[in-house]
């Protein structure tokens, strides 16, 4: 049962990675990186279901906050530079 | 006062993080938590805006609980809408950025309004100006007029939020 969840989340990450690699502009890549961070949180929850170890939820908290700060930093950088490929 | 509230919130959060109080956490963990939340309360107390006596009135809290259910319902509808548009072969979209007006001037209320708009049917807040305008990206633009767009996007949340914060 849980293994199907892992397969679905791996497909999701692959779609995000496709957008990171392909995305025509830098902000497409930033969006995909932000979404990938939230999907990693879902991964941590599934790992908790698999192993029964509450430690993974703490990893999820840390990852959620770090991914938010990363997205804000990317947004600030985009706004100042307007860099493009 | 606001420092006390902030310190209590930080300490509750710390307790939730270290809940299984086994031998590895023990009394030391709680002691460190008290010190850390005191530091947070002293240094960051000034950044909490506008905590006043309004927060002690019970009807505001009841409206807040009602708001959560309204918001969850619209959030669910929004996701079904996005699912329909994603899976439809022709992608029936008609995007655009419209301008809407809001009467809220409480900072927390405005933040909650903008975040709710972002999480509900086909709309994303792009910018909130100082004079009460919101720029909203809309997946299916029904009208470009400011008044009508305000009726459709903002009204349903604004009425409840006014009762909570104003």
């Amino acid at each position: 049962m849980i293994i199907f969840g892992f397969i679905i989340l791996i497909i999701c990450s692959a779609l995000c990675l496709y957008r990171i690699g392909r995305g025509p502009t830098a902000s497409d890549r930033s969006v995909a990186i932000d979404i990938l961070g939230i999907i990693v949180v879902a991964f941590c929850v599934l790992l908790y279901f698999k192993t029964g170890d509450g430690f993974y939820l703490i990893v999820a908290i840390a990852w959620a906050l770090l991914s938010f700060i990363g997205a804000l930093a990317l947004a600030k950088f985009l706004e100042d530079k307007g860099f493009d490929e | 006062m606001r420092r006390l509230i902030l310190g209590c919130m930080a300490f509750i959060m710390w307790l939730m993080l270290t809940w299984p109080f086994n031998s590895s956490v023990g009394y030391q963990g709680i002691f460190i938590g008290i010190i850390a939340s005191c530091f947070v309360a002293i240094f960051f107390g000034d950044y909490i805006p506008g905590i006043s006596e309004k927060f002690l009135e019970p009807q505001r809290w009841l409206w807040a609980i009602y708001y959560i259910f309204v918001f969850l319902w619209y959030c669910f509808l929004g996701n079904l809408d996005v699912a329909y548009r994603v899976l439809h072969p022709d992608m029936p979209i008609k995007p655009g950025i419209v301008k809407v007006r809001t009467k809220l001037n409480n900072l927390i209320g405005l933040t909650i309004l903008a975040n709710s708009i972002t999480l509900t049917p086909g709309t994303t807040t792009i910018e909130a100006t100082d004079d009460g305008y919101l720029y909203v990206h809309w997946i299916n633009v029904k009208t470009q007029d400011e008044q009508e767009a305000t009726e459709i996007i903002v009204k349903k949340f604004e009425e409840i939020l006014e009762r909570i914060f104003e």
Partner: protein
Amino acid sequence: MKETISHIFLFIGLLFDLLGCIGLVRFPDVYLRLMAATKSVTLGTGLILLSVVIAGSAPVAAKAVLVLLFISVTSPTAAHALARASSVSDIKMWEGTVCDKFTEDRKRKTNEKT
């Protein structure tokens, strides 16, 4: 019983995550991608965390509630920042776009200043 309800929530959440990521790939410009992905993935991950709240023991459920709060506050804020940044740095919108009031107003303001 608890187990079944939690698995149903888990499954619906995974479905929404998948939908969000398909939207991220299919939609034609940054703003649409951001919108589809943020909404669906936030709700999906929220439902997955809700399944932990239902099935897990009390300490784990408390941590899951914390993650749920963080995600539902931070994810729209990050989306807002990214959308504003892309609009300010003049990322083109899709050809079918009806109107763009934000760029119009911003250009008018800079013209008035100079």
